[in-house]
């Protein structure tokens, strides 16, 4: 069964998706229990999970899901109402299935017990007379041409015996062919089970009869078959047509008969095509009785002679336990996107041959045209290739609906949660890594933001709080906003706490925005007491760090008494950045385009410092000399360009010798041994094979902010870089 391993990986992944879908459906049902389409979707999800479970070796999932599916089916049929209790239970079942899916190999006893506990709860929703009727394996069993063990026939199992003689009457439905079944095929199958003699009789219209429909089937087929197989094997041949067609299988004799005897039996059936079964059986037994003496003798002889006929093989269909590890490496990709990659690969081939022609002809114009086309194609290919890694953020959003539902119940708060822009796409890696920070922020919003219903009422707000999570594209970024209408952040309290924690001098003159920033400082928490929900020692500083590790930014805005908004800006992908290439001496650097605000120039006289101020549009902004910061060798020119960047509303300029131009940089992350280089987020290889360092602008800005007079740090930085 190892051959179906790839399917197992797909099953695991698919089940995860189905479970997420199920959860979304269940939560939607909570809002609108009458939405039958949702009920249907939930049932279908459960149905598919169950079906696959048994097929791909997740037997416990299949066992567990059976009753859950039945309950959902009853809801679907209108026999059960959608209640909160039922939804809660089904959500728990969903969690349990996920646990079973992720459990290694065979489910342990703990999980089985958990299954049973949940199933007990589900039992209440099952019909009174709970029919344990196992689904009949209606698919025809595999045929064992040598199988002779027929429970009915042999009292003594150990003793092999002779075959039996059966009479099969098959009267095909006139329109049997319209169901894709062909009587001849069925009869051939019958023939394959033993030695068969067939009599085709009954009506057959003339060729020119007006009511003759050549697509219909006429007459009766009476088969006398000598077979080592049981009657059920014969019945299985006709399993798909039984009901519409008349099928009768009767054993007329235990023991064998000669071929000539079979012919005689068949002849006895002539003219009995319309006779009822009793009459036919009577005729057959008469024909048989003539042979009785011989038959008894033959029976004894055969029983004696028959060598050990092979018994039915024990079923070998054990499926190997799936390896769940493989699932995490697969990614489902929109087929249209794959198609465009293939198309582009085709274009690439054409361009290559055009380029070769141009080179052979030494035709620079043609080569330039190829270059132009190649640029366009490369851009498009990059976008599509990155698109392959893109997933809608909604996959994470749906988990939050559940989270907030459970949390608000725990906290005794009432809250409406709305997620918008779930179809906004983000790099899979970013999605995977943004989840935890978002959970933390949402927990904070619910725990610290949204007030208890009574407090809200007292403040003249609706009892139910509101938390909105939205995602949208903005430039090269995805902006995620978490908005609550809670009590907001008390700036004075934050300031007090910051001072208490020694994060802020008591007399510091800082803006409200800066105070709010303190919330992201390590070791800061405004929660008065540590609750179960938030304040578990993981502070907003971790959130900020995690987001920045994704090259994102996080911002807080709050109006006391009205609510808080947390805004997260994330890059679309981690693999490539749009940047501007700048040169200092012999080194080149990349400034990410998202941070870039403009260029200026300045003339210098005398000694420069690492960090200076410069006037820009009537304001003084700090400028950093990359030459000094990174200790680039070479003389300071008297004229330099300043690259103006903005991070978190602050402008900082970087002095460089030359601005080269826009460049798409494929990020190569730094080796671990260079991780301590704070101001570099990575490197990239240029077209000419040289290397550029990608500036970590937020880090640099922070550095500038804290170290306006930073000779010391600059010196240290230069040392580390030159090591």
């Amino acid at each position, binding site marked *: 069964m190892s*051959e*179906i391993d*790839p*399917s*197992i990986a*797909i*099953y695991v992944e*698919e089940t995860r998706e189905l479970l997420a879908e199920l959860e979304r459906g269940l939560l939607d049902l909570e809002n609108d229990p009458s939405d039958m389409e949702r009920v249907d*979707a939930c*049932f*279908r999800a459960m*149905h*598919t999970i*169950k*079906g*696959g*479970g*048994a*097929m*791909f070796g997740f037997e416990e999932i*299949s066992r567990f899901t059976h009753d859950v599916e039945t309950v959902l089916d009853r809801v679907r049929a209108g026999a059960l109402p959608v209640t909160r209790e039922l939804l809660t239970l089904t959500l728990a079942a969903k969690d349990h299935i996920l646990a079973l899916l992720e459990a290694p190999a065979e489910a342990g006893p703990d999980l089985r017990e958990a299954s049973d506990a949940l199933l007990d709860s589900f039992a209440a929703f099952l019909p009174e007379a709970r029919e344990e*009727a196992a*689904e*009949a*394996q*209606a*698919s*025809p069993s*595999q*045929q064992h041409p040598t199988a002779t063990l027929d429970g009915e026939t042999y009292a003594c199992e150990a003793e092999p015996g002779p075959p039996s003689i059966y009479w099969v009457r098959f009267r095909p439905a006139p329109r049997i*062919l*319209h*169901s*894709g*079944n*062909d009587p001849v*095929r069925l009869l051939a*199958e019958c023939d394959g089970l033993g030695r068969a003699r067939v009599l085709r009789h009954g009506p057959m219209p003339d060729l020119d009869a007006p009511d003759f429909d050549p697509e219909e089937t006429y007459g009766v087929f009476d088969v006398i078959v000598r077979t080592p197989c049981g009657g059920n094997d014969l019945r299985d041949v006709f*399993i*798909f047509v039984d*009901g*519409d067609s008349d099928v009768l299988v009767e054993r007329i004799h235990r023991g064998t008969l000669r071929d000539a005897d079979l012919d005689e039996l068949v002849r006895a059936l002539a003219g009995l095509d319309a006779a009822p079964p009793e009459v036919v059986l009577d005729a057959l037994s008469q024909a048989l009785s003539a042979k009785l003496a011989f038959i008894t003798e033959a029976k004894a002889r055969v029983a004696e002679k028959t060598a050990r006929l092979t018994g039915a093989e024990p079923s070998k*269909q054990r499926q190997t336990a799936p390896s769940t590890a493989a699932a995490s490496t697969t990614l489902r990709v929109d087929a249209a996107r794959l198609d465009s990659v293939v198309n582009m690969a085709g274009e690439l081939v054409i361009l290559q041959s055009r380029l070769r022609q141009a080179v052979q002809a030494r035709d620079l114009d043609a080569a330039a045209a190829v270059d132009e086309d190649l640029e366009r194609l490369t851009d498009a290919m990059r976008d599509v290739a990155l698109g392959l890694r893109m997933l809608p953020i909604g996959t994470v959003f749906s988990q939050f609906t559940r989270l907030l539902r459970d949390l608000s119940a725990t906290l005794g708060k009432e809250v409406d949660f709305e997620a918008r822009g779930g179809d906004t796409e983000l790099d899979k890696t970013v999605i995977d890594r943004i989840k935890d920070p978002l959970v933390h922020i949402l927990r904070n919003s619910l725990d610290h933001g949204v007030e208890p219903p009574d407090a809200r009422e007292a403040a003249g707000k609706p009892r139910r709080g509101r938390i909105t999570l939205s995602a949208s594209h903005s430039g090269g970024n995805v902006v995620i906003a978490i908005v609550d209408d809670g009590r907001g952040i008390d700036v004075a309290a934050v300031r007090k706490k910051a001072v208490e924690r020694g994060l802020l001098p008591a007399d510091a003159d800082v803006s409200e925005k800066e105070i709010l920033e303190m919330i992201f400082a390590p070791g800061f928490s405004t929660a008065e007491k540590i609750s179960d929900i938030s304040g578990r020692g993981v502070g907003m500083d971790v959130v900020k760090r995690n987001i920045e590790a994704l090259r994102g930014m996080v911002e807080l805005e709050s109006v006391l008494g009205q609510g808080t908004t947390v805004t997260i800006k994330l890059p679309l992908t981690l693999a490539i950045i749009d940047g501007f290439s700048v040169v200092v001496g012999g080194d080149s650097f990349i400034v990410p385009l998202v941070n870039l605000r403009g260029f200026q120039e300045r003339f210098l006289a005398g000694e420069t410092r690492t960090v200076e101020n410069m006037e820009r549009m009537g304001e003084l902004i700090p400028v950093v000399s990359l030459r000094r910061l990174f200790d680039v060798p070479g003389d300071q020119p008297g004229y330099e360009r300043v690259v103006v960047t903005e991070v978190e509303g602050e402008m900082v300029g970087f002095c460089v010798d030359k601005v080269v131009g826009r460049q798409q940089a494929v990020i190569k992350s730094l080796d671990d041994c260079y991780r301590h280089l704070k101001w570099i987020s990575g490197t990239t290889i240029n077209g000419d094979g040289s290397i550029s360092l990608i500036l970590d602008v937020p880090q640099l800005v922070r550095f500038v902010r804290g170290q306006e007079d930073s000779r010391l740090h600059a010196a240290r930085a230069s040392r580390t870089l030159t090591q």
Partner: protein
Amino acid sequence: MAKRIMTVDDSASVRQMVAFTLKKEGYDVIEASDGKDALSKLSGTVDMVITDLNMPNLDGIGLIKGIRAQAAYKFIPIVMLTTESQAGKKAEGKAAGATGWIVKPFTPDQLVAVVKKVLR
């Protein structure tokens, strides 16, 4: 010439399993994700259809009726995949023109046995 079988299921894992098994047996396989998709892909030689019953857009019963309505596919074998033990669903499928059924879960061997049983 290899026989062409269309497998219709909204579950990618089941489709994959069916396709994998049948391809290994030397059949050509076309995959469709639901009844609607299947009808849109139904053209040229299709010797057999294996379809799930519970599917979005167009379910298995609807698909069977849709296939039988086309002259070219009026008599091809159509096997439904079902976990429903209820006679109702099966009877509905049969009335719509299904050739047979396979009860899920099934093994690759069972699948091949049914295909060999009904495919001319």
